[in-house]
């Protein structure tokens, strides 16, 4: 979910570097906003708790804020810890405390900007921290509020323990709208020399489901494989989606009411390497929009759900697909 980024890399780069496509840096990092101007929210940083649905720019926002606040001193004034770092109770007790304890004074930097007299600790994915660690954090937060401000980022506020949440000002990030996403995508396409079409935009929002990071990643992947031919179909392939024809073909086979036809269709699908889990989830969309009666849909949905779980647990794809489609066949023949 989060990306552990080498902090120094983006900060040392100025905006000009962006056009330098030679850098083997993922686009997500490359096009991460460098100042608050580039993100849509701009707030004073207090003890901040931000919650929203995944991948809507939380981390980007706070990092941009940090950069704007501290400029060159970003590195020394900001400590960022995410899920990939050790964040057990021991870390809270030692390294976070140690960082928070040291006071800093207000100063001005070379460009004459005032730098606030406090430091910033960003705890990304705070909801993944253990209860113990969170509990240990609340005292630290209060004690050192003079020298250090904390920013917690999480997907679900409910997973932050109540006492900790009450110590923070909460900001909720909404999912990015399609327009704002499209805008950003367009910007990136421009820079990278991809021809942006409406079809591409729609496709992107469809495969990414409002997740900008995923959208950018997909775009980059598609671009690296298809270059100038990057289009919606390429996006589908890159996103690991199964072409609609395949799912439809399977349903057709199920409707044929012949087990042999079904068997060979499923075998064919597996042979082509389409992941069963993907088929199951796409089948769900097809079935719910389909012409079947509600009870039939419910029955199919049930088997889809159990199959999905089974697949997660590592069950054999062939058998699970057979099971799913045999139920579809049963229902369709009624």
């Amino acid at each position, binding site marked *: 979910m989060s990306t552990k980024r080498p902090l120094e890399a983006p900060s040392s780069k100025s905006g000009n570097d962006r056009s330098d496509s030679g850098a083997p840096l993922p686009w997500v990092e490359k096009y991460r906003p460098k100042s608050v101007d580039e993100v849509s929210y701009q707030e004073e940083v207090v003890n901040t708790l931000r919650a929203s649905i995944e991948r809507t720019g939380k981390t980007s926002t706070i990092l941009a804020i940090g950069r704007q606040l501290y400029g060159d001193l970003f590195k020394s004034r900001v400590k960022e810890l995410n*899920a990939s770092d050790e964040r057990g109770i021991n870390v809270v007790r030692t390294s976070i405390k140690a960082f928070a304890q040291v006071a800093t004074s207000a100063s001005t930097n070379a460009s004459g900007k005032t730098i606030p007299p406090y430091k910033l600790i960003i705890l990304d994915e705070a909801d993944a921290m253990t209860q113990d660690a969170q509990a240990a954090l609340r005292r630290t937060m209060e004690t050192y509020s003079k020298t250090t401000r904390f920013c917690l980022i999480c997907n679900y506020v409910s997973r932050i323990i109540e006492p900790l949440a009450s110590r923070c000002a909460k900001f909720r990030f909404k999912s990015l709208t399609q327009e704002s996403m499209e805008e950003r995508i367009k910007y990136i396409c421009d820079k990278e020399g991809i021809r942006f079409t409406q079809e591409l935009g729609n496709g992107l929002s469809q495969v990414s489901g409002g997740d900008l990071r995923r959208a950018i990643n997909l775009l980059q992947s598609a671009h*690296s494989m298809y270059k100038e031919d990057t289009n919606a179909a390429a996006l589908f392939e890159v996103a*690991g989606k199964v072409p609609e024809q395949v799912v439809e073909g399977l349903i057709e086979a199920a409707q044929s009411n012949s087990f042999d036809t079904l068997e060979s269709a499923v075998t064919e699908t597996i042979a*082509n390497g389409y992941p069963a889990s993907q088929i199951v989830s796409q089948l769900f969309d097809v079935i719910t929009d389909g012409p079947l009666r509600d009870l039939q849909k419910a029955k199919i949905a049930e088997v889809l759900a159990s199959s999905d779980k089974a697949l997660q647990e590592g069950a054999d794809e062939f*058998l699970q697909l057979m099971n799913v489609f045999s139920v579809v066949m049963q229902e369709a023949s009624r």
Partner: protein
Amino acid sequence: MSKNDGTLWVDRYRPTSLEKLDIHTDLTNQLKKMCTSDNLPHLLFYGPSGAGKKTRVKAVLRSLFGASVEKVKVEHKAIKINTKTIEISIVSSSHHVEVNPSDVEFQDRVVVQEIIKEIAQSVPLDAGTAQKSFKVVVLHEVDKLSKDAQHALRRTMEKYVATCRLILVCNSTSKVIDPLRSRCLPVRVPLPTIKEITSTLQSIAKKEGVNLSTDLANRIAEQSGRNLRKAILSFEAAKVKQYPFAPNQVIERADWEDFIKQMADEISQEQSPQRLQLIRSRFYELLVHCIPPEIIMKNLTMELLGRVDTELKYDVVKWAAHYEQRMQTGSKPIFHLEAFVAKFMSLYKQFLSGLLE
């Protein structure tokens, strides 16, 4: 590579570069494009066994780093975990490392972390001359990694993105956790079609100076279930057995496939605890030969499906899926395999007695 170095055809005629790949040309072209760009994302190759994933990975590596990537050595590295040491084989060149972390079963997480850390931290020796500034880690059978290891992998992947790229290879993405999947560029490698296999077989035959009729090539391809590796191997085995080929030369299925078929016969002949005991010994035999239990279950189901009425098929499929799934969470495959057969026997008997009434 066509010179006779004593290897089997399947190894001797393995294409080594993207240019030589003649199956799935679309895919090959895309890979080519990707290799020419400077920025390589993490890759996830997926597709059934025998589709040519590994061959493609190798070809990609070659086109990335040139011929020097073919100079590989095998290391058998001992990794110490607590008190135990586990050995793992690592294939490496100066540009890449290949590991099959699922070999070590339970401790795969540690292995994944250790290896990638080690590689990522060591910058390529000839960093100046190489055109790429990163190393590549190829991990095979990622779908067999524990969830723990996959999560560890995801973090490691992000941490060392500057110095190394990962190429993951798996049979199916269903067992790969979502965060990992979304971090990679998925590359689907379907099985070659019968036609493609036939033509590959014939081109090998030509190079070897073997006379292979289209009909026989077709039959070999059919028998292999579109698995190219299997097709080439059985072609060579057939050639060794009898050459020149008889027009009606029998292409035998693998022993284990035959064995399962025989079991299906035995099951449909008689349904009783005694018969089940016989079936048990059969299952053990299969497992002794290290045939993965899910493949046993799958093949047995297919065989049994061919022996029952349509009415019963729904149930058979349902229970096969049921027991197979339970098997994945359990530790003793034999329980589940037998349980399925018992269930089948029960269903079959009930069905038969239903017919009589």
